[in-house]
């Protein structure tokens, strides 16, 4: 044998092999070029929408009293011009009651289920395509939604009830509030938002009402806001502008709030207020617990910032049914 034989590669095969190498090189090059220093998708912070509708000429708040909570809701909302003024056909409405605690309706730690259910019914009657009832509870959310009666009552009324275990949170722009807070994503999708607080004593802010109720749409880190509660509550009021605030004073928790427990702390007031002015709504609720609005730091701060007027004379009292 005279040395190794020369390898025989046809021109065709050489071209094919070189092109496969070139394709591999091009694929790697394209991959590297595509991903090189690519801006990774970071959740962009959405702005919180403003859910208010143009002020109806019927005043900024109406209060109804009586033994039927649903009837009180109907009368108060009707006095504000009816739900049709606030909810249009095909809209998605988010109803935000207080479902913070594993308590029964009689204990008055959560919004009354009949009040929530009646609001849902009014929204659907006004043509709402979808009504979502949600809150981020402090206790176990399944127990809160079940034992407050809100899960059953709101579902029966036609709402989609989402307890906080099944909620998605989104990063939102919350200038003025603590950095990094997230909010309930459904809130950003809703066309209209109805805030339905219950009137309760609170150990830090003295009373907890509508503006304080926005704690319930915030995710982890919301408890830092207690460090400066009056400024934080006013800031929440400036950040979240609801279509309507419906204050539930069917039962009022007068002491050991916001959790309560003892029926001895519950006052049977039997009233509901509907308001387009969230500051007035809070002032009216506070007055039920004997507070003068000007004596409450968060109301004074909210008024100073022009979020509303805490003048109880502006409340249209509809009397007892």
């Amino acid at each position, binding site marked *: *044998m005279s040395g*190794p034989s020369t390898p025989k590669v046809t021109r065709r095969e050489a071209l094919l*092999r070189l092109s496969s190498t070139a394709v591999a090189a091009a694929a790697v090059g394209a991959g590297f070029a595509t991903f090189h220093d690519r801006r990774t998708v970071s959740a962009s912070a959405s702005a919180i929408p403003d859910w208010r509708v143009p002020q109806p000429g019927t005043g900024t708040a109406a209060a109804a009293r009586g033994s039927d909570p649903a009837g009180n809701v109907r009368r108060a909302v009707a006095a504000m011009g009816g739900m049709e003024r606030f909810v249009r056909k095909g809209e998605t409405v988010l109803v935000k009651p207080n479902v913070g605690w594993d308590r029964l309706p009689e204990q008055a730690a959560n919004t009354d289920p009949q009040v929530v259910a009646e609001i849902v019914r009014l929204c659907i009657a006004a043509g709402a395509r979808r009504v979502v009832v949600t809150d981020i509870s402090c206790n176990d959310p399944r127990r809160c939604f079940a034992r407050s009666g809100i899960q059953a009552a709101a579902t029966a009324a036609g709402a989609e009830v989402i307890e906080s275990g099944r909620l998605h949170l989104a990063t939102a722009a919350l200038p003025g509030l603590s950095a990094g807070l997230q909010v309930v994503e459904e809130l950003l999708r809703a066309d209209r938002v109805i805030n339905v607080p219950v009137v309760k004593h609170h150990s830090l802010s003295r009373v907890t009402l509508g503006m304080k109720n926005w704690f319930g749409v915030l995710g982890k880190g919301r408890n830092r806001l207690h460090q400066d509660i009056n400024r934080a509550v006013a800031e929440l009021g400036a950040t979240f502008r609801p279509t309507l605030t419906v204050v539930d004073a069917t039962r009022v928790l007068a002491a050991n709030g916001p959790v309560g427990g003892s029926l001895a702390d519950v006052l049977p007031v039997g009233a509901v207020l509907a308001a387009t002015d969230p500051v007035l709504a809070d002032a009216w609720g506070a007055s039920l617990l004997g507070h003068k609005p000007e004596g409450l730091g968060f109301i004074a701060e909210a008024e100073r910032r022009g979020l509303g007027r805490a003048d109880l004379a502006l409340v249209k009292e509809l009397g007892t049914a």
Partner: protein
Amino acid sequence: MRWTIRIRVLYQAFFLVVFLWLLARLAAGDARDLPFSAFHHGDPLSAVGVTFGSGTLPGALVWGSVLIALTLLFGRAFCGWVCPLGTLQQLSSRLFSPRTRRESLHVNRYRRWYAIKYYALAALLVGALAGTLQTGLLDPLSLTARGLASGLWPLLPGGRPAPGGWVAAVLLLGILVASRWIPRMFCRGFCPLGALLGVFARFAVCRIHRAGDACTSCKLCTFACQGADEPLGSHRVGECLVCLNCLPACPEQAITYQALPALPAPPKEPDLSRRYLLGTVLGSIAVAPLLRATGGGREAARPRLLRPPGSLGEAEFLQRCVKCSLCQQACPTSAIHSAIGQAGVEGFWTPVVVPRRGWCEFACTRCGEVCPTGAITRLTPARKTGYDGKPPVSIGTAFVDRGRCLPWAMGTPCIVCEEMCPTDPKAIWFETVDEAGRDGASRKLQRPRVDVAKCVGCGICENKCPVGEEAAIRVYSVGETRDPLNRLLAGGLPK
């Protein structure tokens, strides 16, 4: 033909020396701007892994494409000519195992289990896609740097202890010792970088060719084959490390290394079972959530998990960190150590600041400068310290343990933490009190208090605290800049 081998050995020696020298200079605190992360920048396993994990290929990792291009031209020449771990194994194999020719023939045969590295590669890349980057566990560059830093540097004069470093040292040593039985066992069986290059080597332009009619099947070529790629049979180009030992070994000169040789028929591909590969992929998809759910998730509170300054948020950090240990070696105060359990199973070997070992020097930005993947972002001293007017970069917050602190609990004057505090104004200030001692006599005491809005968590207070073992002032991760949710204070305050 022996000159090709001499040139290869020169290359191997050169790259090994450069690799060791850069590591040593880094650990020695060389102030020059040397290319400390050059090897890691050119590591395509990191490039692909980080891209899969994070969706972006950060900065200089793009150099990994050069290594892939070289592989497309020359095959896995990186493994045979450059890789420091390959060179060390080759050395170990030669030094500790003089073999008879019969033995050499035996140990250099291809074995089916050499396909494990391809499964490992698949598992690591699928894991990265699922959100947990673990390539650093097996990456030869990370392994070598970590093994040396944890197992060798502490033994050198002036060496600083590396707690838990024995794990990495034993692994590196084990890999080297394994070469006593099977040369380059790690390269052949386990190296995911080798596997990645092996995938591209299948397209290599230049490769080994055996002229069949000249070959007498004497098997001499196999005696010194580093890759166990069977130059005698149907050459496995994906296994070949291009050591070129077979060229001069062939008495008939039947073996050549050339561009576009005729291919053996059929070309040998890795012995991968489709079923095993599918199992590997499915298993790896489950690993990331499993590690999070059962290995201590990212959501779990990790009060003492202090990451180096400039680190990304934990999820993004774990998508980028390749566990190369460069930050650990760059840290001038030995504050950075490799996590064993502090960061969960997922964060094994990721860097963590241990203030009792060292503190984060106020204006030092070394760790971010050497991080090859941007898991620790680059900071300027002005940015880190807040001298640029924005809030400084904080890695945590110091808390006084009033039960252990000398002035708080023992009526004994001490001001060390306040004295050391580097911020302006100092985050640690004194509350001056008159305190009656046991004898009833009153004396003035300065008790340290922490202004949480000013503290950057550097840990020099904890490091210098004269209270032995557990310090009386300790840094916790709350307040770290990288996590907007891990905060103490509300409002627009910097913390």
